[in-house]
């Protein structure tokens, strides 16, 4: 049996057995919904309904109801799109990259991080969809035979690469997530008492019975999917960054964008995972499974990716001067001293300075500090996309068309609305799905459980 060094902190606290893990994870699903959950989902779904209302109004009226003008043609909408896609990067990173590196701590967080990924990507996909104005013709992005004079979509365009990247990312993440869920649904199915619940979880578990050969295949599928999902994670946000980087707009036209966007995505994704899990572990009493060590590990990822983002900000600032291109250097001078400088400095403070606080062990291991900083990081990352998009285009080559962007209440409503839809989906997930990969957790109990580690040290 595999053993771990005694000085390594245990990943599962308390005197847990296999049975306890099942009880702790499935227990909250069987019991009645807690009042706190009811309040939260009511608020979230009300906000979601408001957002859907804003979207319907937008679709019925046209995208003129946004604050866009002829100079600023992309703004909140694309900011929100990139922000949500970025958040959607942590889940697959946790489940794929950390699986390849055999990181056992991922098992406590991968399930909910993947759920977050899937919901975030759905939110992201809303934005380019409604930005089309006529969403009912959104199937035009697919290369379908048509009656418009053999007109095909343009495979040279990063916007089309995005269609393929986002849809592949979404569907592959969904499959990866569901394959992991099947054995856990089987566990719930075999515990449920009421016929209806038994029937539903029976359907969801696809008749899983835990045979030895099936487990061999399960592990092989997880490994191969992790192997192909890893480059996929990196490719998706690289392609999103190419939407900007392949244009000729000063401030967008830079080769640093792909790595800079990918690390920013992981940075914001982990921050969102922290925000959600810190609440979930408390609400569902999972403190023994997701504890300070897990939070610390995630904070270390946040320091690393946050520092890469910081270096990228400074690099693009330096290069804008060093390139000698006056349009390029103006774009950056305008960023930090122009009419949008407040958002630039907001981004710098939230993304460059605040994650550096995690170098202090006390802060890195403090749940409250982590919770506050995770929200700060997500605000910062939203402003990063806003700064990149709006400050680069609001003053273009022709000063007579310089303008500014002011969001309307529909801009704001659609964004807040997606937050509502996201939280509604996530709360439903937390109520009815196994929020921890409980059967995978059992495989690390003997090597990383507190009670078993104590036994080994004594022996």
């Amino acid at each position: 049996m595999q053993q771990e060094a005694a000085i390594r902190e245990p990943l599962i606290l308390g005197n847990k057995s296999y049975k306890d893990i099942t009880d702790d994870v499935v227990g909250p699903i069987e019991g009645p919904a807690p009042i706190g959950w009811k309040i939260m989902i009511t608020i979230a779904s009300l906000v979601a309904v408001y957002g859907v209302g804003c979207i319907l109004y937008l679709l019925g009226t046209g995208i003129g109801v946004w604050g866009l003008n002829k100079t600023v043609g992309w703004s909140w909408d694309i900011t929100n799109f990139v922000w949500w896609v970025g958040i959607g990067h942590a889940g697959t990173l946790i489940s794929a990259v950390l699986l390849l590196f055999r990181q056992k701590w991922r098992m406590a967080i991968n399930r909910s991080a993947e759920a977050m990924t899937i919901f975030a990507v759905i939110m992201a996909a809303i934005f380019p969809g409604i930005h089309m104005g006529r969403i009912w013709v959104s199937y035009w992005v697919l290369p379908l035979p048509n009656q418009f004079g053999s007109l095909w979509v343009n495979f040279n365009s990063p916007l089309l690469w995005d269609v393929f990247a986002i849809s592949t990312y979404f569907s592959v993440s969904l499959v990866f997530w569901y394959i992991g869920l099947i054995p856990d649904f089987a566990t719930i199915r075999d515990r449920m008492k009421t016929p209806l619940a038994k029937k539903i979880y029976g359907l969801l578990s696809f008749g899983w019975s835990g045979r030895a050969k099936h487990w061999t295949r399960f592990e092989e599928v997880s490994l191969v999917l992790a192997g192909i999902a890893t480059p996929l994670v990196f490719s998706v946000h690289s392609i999103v960054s190419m939407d900007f980087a392949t244009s000729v707009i000063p401030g967008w036209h830079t080769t640093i964008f792909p790595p800079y966007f990918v690390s920013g995505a992981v940075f914001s994704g982990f921050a969102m995972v922290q925000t959600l899990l810190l609440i979930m572990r408390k609400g569902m009493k999972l403190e023994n499974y997701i504890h300070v060590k897990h939070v610390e590990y995630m904070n270390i990822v946040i320091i690393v990716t946050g520092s890469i983002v910081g270096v990228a900000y400074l690099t693009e600032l330096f290069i804008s001067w060093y390139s000698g291109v006056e349009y390029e250097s103006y774009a950056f001078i305008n960023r930090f001293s122009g009419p949008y400088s407040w958002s630039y400095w907001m981004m710098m403070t939230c993304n460059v300075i605040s994650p550096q606080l995690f170098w202090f062990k006390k802060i890195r291991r403090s749940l409250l500090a982590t919770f506050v900083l995770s929200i700060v990081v997500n605000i910062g990352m939203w402003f990063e996309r806003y700064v990149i998009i709006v400050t680069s285009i609001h003053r273009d080559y022709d000063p007579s068309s310089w303008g500014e962007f002011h969001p309307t209440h529909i801009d704001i409503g659609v964004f807040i609305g997606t937050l509502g839809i996201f939280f509604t989906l996530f709360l439903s997930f937390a109520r009815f799905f196994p929020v921890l990969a409980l059967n995978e957790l059992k495989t690390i109990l003997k090597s990383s459980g507190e009670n078993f580690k104590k036994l080994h040290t004594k022996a």
Partner: protein
Amino acid sequence: MSKVFHVMYDDDDTLKGAASQLVAQGVRVKEVFSPFPIHGIDPIIGVKRTRLAIAAFMYATMGTTLALLGMWYFMIQDWPMNIGGKPSFSLIENLPAFIPVTFEFSVLCAAHGMAITYLLRNGTLPGMPASNPDPRTTDNMFVMEIVSDENSMTNEELESAIKNTELVELSIKDYES
């Protein structure tokens, strides 16, 4: 009459030890049901390595081919477009711009092809009935299935060999294949 023995253990390592012990005595263990993968059980009970990864590679190759073929047809053969002066008259010249979609489509085909093959080979599909002998095997119990037909021992010999292991429960039923 052929019998099926369901031997229940409360620990994965105990089951593994018991399986080794029985296999050494010439018993064939038909199946093991467990709540999570028991590492190292496969060689003991003779489960062969899965070929799913090879299938995934073939699906990926299919995706690469289809993507390139499709883009060659749309962008080069059927309706070449001059977009920003980019070369659009042969696949090889236009290839750099086709790499992202080729990659994404290969991953798409590999992942979905592999997942569908996995579900079909397992026979785990929506609406399939569960076939684990005891509901506790998805929680904290580990069950070994031994069929007397596949073994040269008599039912009594098998039973006494099984009872020599650290089992928790034993159920013996008539075997219906």
